């Protein structure tokens, strides 16, 4: 544990300021999954909606210290429809987007969105539809997913799997966007663990920005 935190401290104090963000990720939007009557999955006695909000708030404060603007789609424990989330994401001019969830396993999952049609098959209306916003960022989102997964795997030792699913919060995002599911099993989500996950995700974001 000590070695883990020491690694983070070296990264945040030395490496991060030296390597300025190459991708200009000024505005980061974080989307804590679920909320209100939608609990998500359970992890021990904790609920997904609480864990995701707590980690998102910790991650927000890290990123703010680094001078980035950070918005959360929800700041409190309330239900937020997918449509409301998409509206908030669209209004935020995000340079980078991450939706936070828990997987129903001991592994972490990282998703990018999936489209049935290629751009060539779209009508003009479909091309400019809110759900098409992610199309031009699919490659970058995959790169982002790989780097975040690397950070989670390296710094936390969890197995990370990657996939594509039709996820509306990602489809509506005009920036690199991933949905991260942290493991719900085999992890005790106390304050320290959540801080560690927030750090690992922060490292992933910074590493992506530096590439």
């Amino acid at each position, binding site marked *: 544990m000590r070695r883990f935190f020491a690694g983070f401290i070296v990264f945040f104090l030395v490496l991060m300021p030296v390597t300025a963000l190459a991708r200009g990720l000024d505005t980061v939007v974080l989307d804590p*999954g679920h909320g209100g009557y939608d609990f998500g999955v359970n992890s021990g006695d904790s609920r997904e909606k609480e864990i995701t909000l707590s980690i998102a708030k910790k991650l927000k404060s890290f990123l703010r210290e680094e001078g980035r603007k950070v918005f959360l789609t929800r700041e409190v424990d309330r239900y937020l429809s997918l449509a409301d989330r998409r509206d908030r994401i669209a209004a935020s001019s995000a340079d980078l987007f991450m939706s936070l969830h828990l997987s*129903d396993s001991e592994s972490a999952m990282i*998703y990018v969105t999936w489209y049935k049609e290629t751009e060539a098959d779209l009508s003009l209306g479909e091309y400019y539809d809110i759900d098409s916003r992610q199309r031009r960022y699919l*490659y970058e989102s995959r790169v982002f997913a*790989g780097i975040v997964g690397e950070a989670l795997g390296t710094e936390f030792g969890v197995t990370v799997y990657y996939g594509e699913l*039709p996820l509306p919060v990602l489809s509506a995002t005009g920036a690199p966007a991933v949905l991260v*599911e942290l493991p719900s099993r085999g992890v005790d989500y106390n304050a320290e663990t959540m801080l560690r996950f927030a750090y690992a995700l922060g490292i992933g974001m910074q590493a992506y920005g530096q590439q």
Partner: protein
Amino acid sequence: MDNSKGPGGFRIFMPTVVFLVLFAGGIAAGYFFFMKTTQKKAPEGPETARPAGAATTIQVYFPIEDRLQAEDRQVPRPPSKLASARATVEEFLKGPKTAGDSYVPEGARLLGVYDGEDGILYIDLSDEFRRNLKVDALGEFLLLRGLYESVLTNVYGVADVKILIERAETETLGGHISLMRPLGETVSQTLVEE
């Protein structure tokens, strides 16, 4: 969970490949099932009564862990298209007999099935189908895909499926995937391997 490399070095789920195999198998099974049925009977309207009686086998696709698992179920031969849809959905809601963690929501009931425009079959389910669902994104996807595959395999003349909860359109079941459009596009994920 098994996975493999996809285009651009991004990994894709092997279960997706398994779905496709299952789906192809399901289509083939459905084809032979209906060929068998139609060869014996004259063409008929969607709700024209057919003599009930003998049992028939349907294939139901259940979400189990990170895959879909097909199970054969014996049901009384449905006398109509909508009866066939009801029988299929009711078997789906019973959950799998195969060992492994499944997440078909407990206590969910079928409230009705309706023929819509353009071949869309509306499946109206009780609120337990949403309320008792505790899954991650892949689980939600597999549940929807399992229901969709089960219906399209066993019910003739269905172009797409739309889920209603308590007679109303519902945005999402588990907070990850949208139900605002019929399921076909959402669950028809096809991935090309390297």
